């Protein structure tokens, strides 16, 4: 059917000349045919796009499943929990620092963190009272002991559950095998250190700098780091319990020599777990999207046998 309201002859509005009906009908017919042809062409194009997409979606891809679902979920949960534990842990530490020097007028507890805060604040030219400068940036703040303790217990219980699930995921997915040390590890680790030290100079001088061969899922440094994390995680939990229940778990407190021994181990573990994330994040960025994605989706298209990117 014709749609006169869309006919070009009716546009312009002010035209009053008599209309040639035959000519008009002819034009309409032609336009109709043109429209039909255009619609058909569009449909064909759409169909072609769809077919291309279907073909692309049907394209076979080989993937390797890298990380068990439990490992992935708990890996990311650890990011939040570790952050929460450090922010609250340092606020608890503020109440009674374990690393101390003789008291000074501005620092009666002899807390090195307060000194470091002063030093950093004066470096950045911060005016005013800068005693708590570092605590305010690395913890939920001074004078927050009751709040920090409640939150630390919450995160600590979740951390233990999360850690247990992480190990369960390593076992279920068989990922633990890739973390076991090998006899060849020292030599491979040295080769990796040499490689990392040479990356930037070789990139600057545009000389080739091939990645040392990696046999298996991880290189020797990764294996060492990824095995150390759960072990340090277990140690941070044990030293935490030694501090939390020294009377009930007296044997555990003795394992760390004494109460302050447990505090020092707990603090050191925190430093190791926290500082691990820095090279970890840098190397994941350097390694590329596939590596990051594999910790979200589990699979990787970077198969062994294909050259390392």
């Amino acid at each position, binding site marked *: 059917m014709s749609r006169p309201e869309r006919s070009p002859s009716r546009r312009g509005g002010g035209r009053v000349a008599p209309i040639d009906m035959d000519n008009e009908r002819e034009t309409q017919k032609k336009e109709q045919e043109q429209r039909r042809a255009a619609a058909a062409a569009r449909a064909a194009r759409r169909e072609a796009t769809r077919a291309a997409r279907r073909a692309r*979606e*049907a*394209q076979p891809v080989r993937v390797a*499943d890298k990380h068990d679902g439990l490992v992935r979920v708990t890996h990311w949960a650890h990011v*939040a929990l570790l952050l929460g534990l450090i922010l609250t842990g340092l606020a608890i530490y503020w109440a009674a620092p374990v690393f101390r020097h003789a008291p000074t007028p501005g620092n009666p507890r002899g807390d090195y963190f307060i000194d470091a805060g002063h030093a950093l604040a004066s470096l950045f030219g911060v005016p005013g009272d800068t005693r708590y400068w570092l605590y305010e940036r690395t913890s939920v703040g001074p004078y927050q002991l009751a709040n920090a303790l409640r939150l630390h217990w919450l995160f600590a219980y979740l951390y233990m559950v999360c850690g247990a699930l992480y190990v369960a995921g390593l076992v279920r997915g068989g990922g633990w095998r890739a973390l076991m040390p090998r006899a060849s590890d020292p030599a491979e680790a040295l080769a990796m250190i040499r490689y990392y030290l040479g990356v930037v100079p070789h990139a600057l001088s545009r000389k080739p700098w091939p990645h040392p061969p990696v046999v298996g899922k991880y290189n020797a440094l990764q294996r060492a780091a990824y095995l150390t994390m759960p072990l340090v995680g277990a140690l941070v939990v044990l030293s935490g319990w030694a501090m939390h*229940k020294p*009377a009930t778990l*007296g044997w555990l407190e003795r394992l760390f020599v004494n109460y302050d021994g447990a505090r020092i181990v707990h603090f050191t573990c925190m430093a190791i777990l926290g500082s691990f994330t820095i090279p970890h994040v840098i190397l994941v960025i350097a390694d590329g999207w596939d590596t990051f*994605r594999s910790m*979200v989706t589990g699979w990787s298209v970077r198969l062994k046998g294909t050259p390392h990117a």
Partner: protein
Amino acid sequence: MPDKQAKGPSLGAKLGAAIRRAAASAAERPETSRETTRGVLAARSRRDFLLFGAAALATTTVGWWLLPERAKRTWLPGSADRLDSLAARVGLTRMQREANLNRVLTFDDDVAEALFAKDRRVRTYDRADPRPLVINYNGRIPRPEYVAGWRLNLSGLASGRTESLSIDELLSRFTRHDMITRLVCVEGWSHVVAWGGLRFADLLSAYPPAPGTRWAAMRSSVSLDDDGNPDPYYVSIDLETARHPQALLATHQAGAPLTLAHGAPLRLVAPMKLGLKNIKALTDIAYTTAEPADYWNDRGYSKYDGL
């Protein structure tokens, strides 16, 4: 040597073989890959990244909600109020937070209570820390006048009476026990101290609490605040702990009678509890059926405080 051949491989060889077998079974397996299609991968990725994003958003929201007020105002002074009202819109109010975090404290206290064993002795030491014991008193040290008229008042007894005992009565009627234990403060410092005094258990046998009572409400009416105004200190102690042989009503520290700063003339020393339960200058003990109030629990700390 035919004898040895008959025995088969030596122990060392067997051990070596066992280690090799264990190492082989722990060895990394060659990577296996599977075939799928781009379409399946795209759909899976979309789902996983949407979940990842939703979880990250939820974690950030809950994290903000859990932050102490001071941290919120230090880190985002401009938008803290706006973010708080946004969180409140999804039910994450300050009141909700307090209720939930106090539930965490109760859970942790329940763990501590479940771990308590009345026969377990707290670690003792050969000698005390030579440094002077920290005075971590929250307020001013009480003036010495109260000591002369000091009495320990007991109520909630099986006899139905109230008792009032002087320090001389306590010292002469009960055996003195000495112990060197660690005092652990909630703040994180600790101190090995030599204590002397009577066992709380002996007082409980001499003046048994009324049947059905489970708690001792312990109080120091002479406590002062920062400005020197009366600020009674009160703690709750479960009777299981009170009956523990290492729960002392101490009269001596480092061989000398308690000083005013350390709670003269009588204080509680319960090394299986945090230091804040070790009430100084004790004046009243009331045995109760319901759990009594606790000074630091009223200020956001846990209540059972078992170490």
